[in-house]
């Protein structure tokens, strides 16, 4: 992808996600501390940080997979509260892609992709299948539609997982280390798919340590440590000129590796 491509991706002024002074505890353990973050529509944010720093937890809070105890999360104008209606609304706006894909092994690829549209969005089956095929083509595995997840390689499975999220036509995508369970060859397939998505202007939050990807696609990199956002910046600046000590240490490890 070229510089030109990158500039194509537009960032609007509209706020997609806003997180204000969000705090979360696991029991007495303070995982997330005063997180403040505004994501604009069309932004592509990469979250990095050492293991245990709370990256996954942050992402999962946005999707209400975890409850937060203090502060406010607004997704697409809807305030995330314990009201089920709001949670449902947000979840259907937000797609999520897990490290371990979590495809449903008892359903075919196509069924995996049509399940939520049919049952949550109440799309007619036919239409749902068309949409599904559309996205499967996009992730370049339309020919696998009738296989079961167990018959696919890891990279293919992860792409199905992306397609499955996309079928709900979410306006925001969350990725939690989508490539870290994959073999090196497969990582590329998945990253390519994500780059494509980014080019189309999807709002994306992505926990990843693929720094190449971050440079290429992100317009902001966030560095977390001990449950806090320690530094955030544009990728070039972030990599070339980190300010915080921890960030420097982390980058030296990750890039030296």
């Amino acid at each position: 992808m070229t510089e030109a491509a990158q500039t194509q991706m537009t960032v609007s002024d509209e706020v997609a996600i806003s997180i204000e002074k969000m705090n979360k505890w696991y029991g007495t353990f303070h995982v997330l501390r005063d997180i403040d973050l505004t994501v604009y529509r069309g932004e592509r944010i990469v979250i990095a940080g050492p293991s245990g720093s709370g990256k996954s937890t942050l992402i999962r809070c946005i999707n209400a997979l975890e409850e937060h105890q203090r502060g406010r999360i607004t997704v697409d104008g809807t305030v995330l509260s314990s009201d089920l209606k709001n949670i449902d609304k947000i979840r259907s706006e937000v797609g999520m892609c897990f490290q371990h894909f979590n495809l449903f092994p008892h359903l075919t690829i196509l069924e995996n992709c049509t399940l939520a549209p049919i049952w949550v969005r109440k799309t007619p089956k036919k239409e749902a299948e068309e949409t599904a095929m559309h996205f499967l083509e996009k992730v370049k595995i339309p020919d696998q539609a009738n296989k079961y997840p167990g018959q696919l390689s890891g990279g293919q499975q992860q792409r199905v997982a992306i397609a499955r999220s996309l079928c709900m036509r979410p306006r925001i995508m969350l990725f939690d280390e989508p490539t870290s369970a994959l073999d090196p060859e497969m990582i590329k397939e998945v990253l390519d798919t994500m780059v494509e998505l980014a080019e189309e202007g999807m709002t994306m939050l992505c926990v990843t340590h693929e720094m190449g990807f971050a440079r290429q696609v992100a317009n902001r990199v966030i560095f977390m440590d001990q449950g806090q956002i320690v530094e955030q910046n544009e990728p070039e600046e972030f990599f070339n000129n980190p300010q915080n000590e921890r960030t420097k240490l982390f980058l030296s490890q990750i890039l030296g590796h």
Partner: protein
Amino acid sequence: MSDTHQHSIRFVRESMLPEQEPPATERGVIKWMRENMFSNIPNGILTLIALYAVYAILSGLLPWLLNGIWDAPSIRACREILDGQTGGCFAVLTERWNQLLFGFKYPNHLYWRPTVAFVLLFVAIAPVLFYNTFPRQMLIFTALYPFVAYWLIWGGSILVPIFALVGFGVGYIVYSKYVAQSFAMGFFGGIAGALVTWWLTGMIPVEGVLAMEAVPSRDMGGFMLNLILGTVCVSLSIPFGIALALGRQSDMPFIKWICVVFIEFIRGVPLITLLFVASVVLAYFLPPGTNFDLILRVIIMITMFASAYIAEVIRGGLAALPKGQYEAADSLGLDYAQSMRLIILPQALKISIPGIVNVAVGLFKDTTLVSVISMFDLVGMIRGPILASTEWNGVYWELLGFASFLFFITCYGISQYSQWLERQLNTDHR
């Protein structure tokens, strides 16, 4: 090897050696015998003992089986025919065949009905047991089967099972209508819908409309009773078991607590005491004047019993699912009921099938316990009317052997199936 030099260790084989016959000791019957039966002295002794045991059993059993009398009106006549030789009086089986299978009160001319129901059972159960082989559409018949079987076995107006079915239908329609809004609403709405339908249809007089001769439950007996109790209770206990298992996994402490107490209570007491409850005290807990017949009370109790065990099996299946499946379902926006029904249960149940089958086998064997509360199942028939009758007083072995044989065939068959299934699941595509 001659061409392996000690100083220059180089060795290269020019031509490959052919395969050779193994030495005689490695071949054929002799090797097999030596290895498998006489590999050392203790083993040899064991073999001889085992051979003797086999001989002793067979020499007792074979003449008795082969020399058996299949046609005689009573044990005395039978002994006369045998005239002192060893031989079984299998005539009791032919004479009392129908009683053994159907009990002594089921009307003779109606035997075809349970027989048909029994045959249909296989048609109904096949798509469940061999879900890969049979077309899914056959499951429709499986769903209809309970009503068909009820009508065949109990008789009476066909409207009764039809109304029952309609009740379920209405319940389902209500459920699917409201489930979108909330599972609880759908669920209880469904139940309410079904109840209302049953209540309404209950007021329609059905006496004799399209009726087959009715047979009261207390006339059920023999092996048929074991089969009825087994199939009915196992199939009823699966939904209850699922509910209990889900309840036990629930993060609502009170609901979890109820389920735990129920399951542990049931698993802690012997089935017999539950049957006593059914036969002796249950009536005290029902509204005055309700008059459940014994078989129904027994079915309730055995179902409770089986659900507790099945719940534990299913809990194992649920626990075996990775947490990611729950999360993926959540993040797609599926609600609790949907994620259970579409994602979690199909997988958990599949894992649990072998366990469920084991519970079913155990339960089927335990249906013989109803003879203790004087119901005339196969064992009850043998111990009661048949052995007590003047004609057949004393033909223990033939009758008990026959009962063992019937149970062995069924249970062994089922457990072989479950082993086959376990192997099948192990090699499943995933």
